[in-house]
């Protein structure tokens, strides 16, 4: 999956702004290229958990659709842990058709990774950041 560098910058900017809470949202684009970022509210307002509000999810999905975009990934930040799916991330990954992106802010180091999580099985997806 390719992603525009400016989208990655926006994810980290949101993550830093919302830290120590986890930040989250959807990523949209066409085919295998992420071009748009839709920040969403972390309903849990937690530094250790996140969940999305279904009403906001529907609104964003329709907005993306109206712009001719598909939702390709959901992202969240790990303010103080590595960019890999936690046991809870894996347990709560119900959608087999979406990529799960995790952006880590651990110790001020920005790292971003992407995964498919299907029936508890995690597979890394290469994330190519375009300049």
């Amino acid at each position, binding site marked *: 999956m390719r992603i525009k560098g400016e989208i990655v910058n926006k994810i980290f900017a949101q993550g830093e702004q919302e830290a120590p809470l*986890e930040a*989250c949202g959807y990523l949209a684009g066409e085919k295998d290229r992420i071009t748009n970022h839709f920040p969403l509210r972390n309903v*849990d307002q*937690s*530094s*250790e*958990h*996140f*969940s*999305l509000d*279904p009403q906001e*999810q*529907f609104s964003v*999905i*329709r907005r993306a*659709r109206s712009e001719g975009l598909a939702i390709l990934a*959901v992202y*969240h930040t*790990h303010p*103080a*842990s590595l960019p890999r*799916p*936690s046991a*809870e*991330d894996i347990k*709560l*990954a*119900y*959608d087999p058709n*979406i990529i*799960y992106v995790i952006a880590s802010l651990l110790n001020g180091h920005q790292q971003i990774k992407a995964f498919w999580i299907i029936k508890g099985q995690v597979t890394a997806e290469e994330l190519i950041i375009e300049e």
Partner: protein
Amino acid sequence: MRIKINGKEQVIEKGLSVAELLIVNKVEMPDMVSVQLNGEFVRRGKFSQTVLKENDEIDFLYFMGGGK
């Protein structure tokens, strides 16, 4: 009959309920799915009783959440 599912027009069998449509669409955990029919939420307890009609627009999405 024709309906729109997640923005895409599809032909489905007449008389399908929301619960049956989710099965047809290979949703394995309907308890973790939110559904809107013509822009209104359908409560999970009503999935089996809610029958789809011609030109309905149904959207469904999975719960999204996680933790560290």
